[in-house]
């Protein structure tokens, strides 16, 4: 990153944190992946888990996540400072701004968001522990187009071993 670009992204970041820039004005903030995804996002964030659409968390939550990558939910996900700056600026610019995402979930986990829990309320707790699922972070276990940022309920697949009660939740 050039010095000017680094300065610009730092400036953008601090303005966003201070709330000087109304984030909604510059962001799309939807659930879909933005048209332009930095290759570093796919490479760095997408190697251990789905490259989540930035619109699934609010800006402040992304900033906290990006400032604590050394201990990222129990693993070391540290990156060089230039990449952290670049990705933070992009995440903030594309963070969720619409009503239900604006609220910051516990531990900045999008899987603890009220909207996430509501959407998945029909699933038994055991469903998340299945070998075919393993974790709520594994969107692609059921959402076949998750890599493309599509979480449509018509593109679901039922993971192996799902109990009958949770199965019914796929159809409501």
């Amino acid at each position, binding site marked *: 990153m050039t010095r000017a670009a680094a300065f610009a992204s730092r400036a953008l970041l601090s303005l966003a944190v201070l709330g000087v820039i109304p984030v909604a004005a510059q962001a799309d903030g939807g659930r879909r992946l933005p048209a332009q995804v930095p290759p570093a996002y796919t490479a760095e964030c997408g*190697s*251990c*888990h*789905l490259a989540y659409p930035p619109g699934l968390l609010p800006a402040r939550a992304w900033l906290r996540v990006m400032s604590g990558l050394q201990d990222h*939910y*129990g*693993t*070391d*996900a*540290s*990156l060089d400072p230039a990449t952290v700056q670049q990705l933070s600026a992009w995440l903030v610019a594309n963070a969720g701004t619409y009503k239900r995402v604006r609220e910051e979930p516990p531990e900045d986990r999008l899987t603890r968001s009220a909207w996430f829990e509501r959407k998945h309320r029909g699933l038994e707790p055991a469903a998340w522990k299945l070998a075919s*699922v*393993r*974790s709520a*972070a*594994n969107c692609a*276990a059921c959402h076949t187009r998750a890599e493309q940022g599509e979480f449509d309920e018509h593109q679901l697949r039922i993971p192996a071993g799902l109990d009958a009660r949770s199965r019914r939740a796929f159809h409501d």
Partner: protein
Amino acid sequence: MTPRPIRAAARRALPWALALLAALSGLAAHAADTSAAQQLQHWSAQADQPGDAAAGRVFFTGRHGGEWSCASCHGNPPTANGRHESTGKTIAPLAPAFNPKAFTDSAKVDKWFRRNCRDVLQRECSAQEKADVLAFLQGFKP
């Protein structure tokens, strides 16, 4: 021979040629700057001892007092796709004979050794440990 159709064909082909050129230069930008063999040599030299495949096997499959081993995510043997222990994300095979991209980018090798050693051992790996693991991984043949 009429030159016009040839020129037209050339004009039609030009964007494709440019696209091909761009694709090729894109590849060149990600050219391999190292290999598993070079990494083995490098870490063996740093450790002042050749990598030991048997020690590498013990190291790779051991939990080192923590929750995870290298094999938790990379599998054992690490010749097929692995799966991230907590997220379930697919991880390409680690053994170089089963994954032509493994250990071909030194920045990536350094980054993942640093991160993953901290995850498994709560510290960075020594040169000897890296050499041993590389010797172990190099031992897998298709």
